[in-house]
């Protein structure tokens, strides 16, 4: 940690703060999970330590699955900090509104393929939002922030993961949420297969029905 120089706060997130810094002559991202004073100390420490150790493992799993993720340089569980490669590029969140419909659908299709690759290997991202996807200058899409992820083969987890993607599109990109999600699912189906993707879609519907006051339950009334 001592070797980290000139940290510059990039983003103050809900569970971690991201700094752009110099570390052994490299430009890196320092992800620091600082104590949250609103939580009980013991619960806070558990959550931060668990996520700090878990996230690099999942990032590695994702890489093995064929999904671009930042390289991890250092994991400091005592200080609940991770040092990783800085991915230069644009957040998909900023891009989606600026590009043409065709480009948008193509981009979402590719995102769907990447999610498919993760799920095929039992990697659940846990926070699939367009802020957690970065397009670099070589046209590669990187997935970041696996802090809420898990490794599980369960259908339920895949369903929730994609449900979150859908919800993120609805709340942030409401003008073209449906079109985007449809493209995501097409890309997803290409990787996991049409039948498997249909099973997940059914699961998503089931998950949505569990929520309160949801439109999906109307058909049952």
């Amino acid at each position, binding site marked *: 940690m001592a070797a980290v120089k000139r940290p510059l706060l990039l983003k103050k997130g809900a569970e971690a703060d991201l700094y752009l810094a110099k570390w052994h002559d490299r430009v890196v991202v320092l992800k620091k999970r600082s104590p949250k004073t609103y*939580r009980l100390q013991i619960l806070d420490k558990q959550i931060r330590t668990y996520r700090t150790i878990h996230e690099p493992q999942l990032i590695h799993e994702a890489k093995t699955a064929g999904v671009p993720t930042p390289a991890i340089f250092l994991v400091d569980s005592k200080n609940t900090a991770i040092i990783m490669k800085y991915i230069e590029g644009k957040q998909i969140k900023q891009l989606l509104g600026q590009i043409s419909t065709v480009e948008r659908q193509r981009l979402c299709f590719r995102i769907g393929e990447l999610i498919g690759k993760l799920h095929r290997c039992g990697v659940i991202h846990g926070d699939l939002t367009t802020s957690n996807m970065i397009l670099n200058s070589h046209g590669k899409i990187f997935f970041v922030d696996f802090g809420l992820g898990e490794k599980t083969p369960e259908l339920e987890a895949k369903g929730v993961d994609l449900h*979150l993607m859908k919800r993120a599109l*609805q709340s942030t990109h409401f003008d073209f949420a449906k079109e985007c999600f449809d493209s995501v699912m097409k890309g997803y189906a290409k990787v996991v297969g049409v039948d498997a993707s249909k099973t997940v879609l059914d699961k998503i519907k089931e998950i949505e029905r569990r929520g*309160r*006051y949801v439109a999906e*339950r109307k058909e049952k009334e």
Partner: protein
Amino acid sequence: MKTRKTKEHYCLGIESTADDFSIGISTFSGEILANVIDAYTPLEGGIHPREAARHHAEVASDVLEKALTISGIKPSMLSLIAFSQGPGLGPCLRTGATVARALSSYLDVPLTGINHCIAHIEIGKLKTGVKNPVTLYVSGGNTMVVAFDSGKYRVFGETLDIALGNCLDVFAREADLRQKPGLPFGAVVEKLALKGRKLIPLPFTVKGMDLSLSGLLTSATTLLHKEQYRLEDLCYSLQETAFSMVAEVTERALAHTGRKEVLLTGGVAANKRLQSMIGSIAEEHKAEFDVVPSEFAIDNGAMVAWTGVLAYICGITTPIEKSYVKLRWRLEEVEVPWLQ
């Protein structure tokens, strides 16, 4: 009482989505003149929709009379009738809607159907003065983080299964705790939690901006029936874990939207521990933090009346033939032109 300007217009709002039957009266400029709430308290178990609806029908005329007396408004002075059209329990909603339709046609004034969740946010803004907040709305039926964007309120996070208030209520009932009339079970849990010392590990389930409370409830009740922990410690652990979850989701929405105001509302907003947690998050993000006063945080008619005014000013009325209740009316479906 009757020294008001003759030019002022008045809206009467009816709330009956769940266990409370309430009538509120608001001026068109946002002065709340009456807010009478009559809660149905079941002798045992949770809210039975039919029993709650029977309660509403029984108390409706008394509540109406009380609201008119307190406000000093004569029925003939009303310009608008607003009612909670959804979401909620069918029989309860229908009782309120029936009263609303009757008043509207008898007085020959327009009717406007209001989304209950939006009413909670609008009254919160009116009462605290916040303008464009991230709202955490936690009650027996809802747990959601909401913010306005481009014409509509958007849900940034919510429970994937049961609501926070529901989670606390069911746990309290499983523990055979007695509910004080007029106070939610959550208040009993809160009191016991103050005497808790030991944090018992319980599942912490945050999924992106959403969260899940059903596993937490199952775990807590299982441990309760094993009788190996003090009830105070269980209440404490249940609260700490559940509140930490909603707090994290709120913080995520705050970081995501970059808003500078946080509003806490709904029945569970009265919980002091939850208030301190959300307050701490707001402080860390240099945002203003406000809690809706209890009377306006629980289900109440005033919020419906005030939101009715906002809708009516933008030309939104509900003809009687379209005033059927909407049990699962999501707030993202509603256009809110008064916030353009």
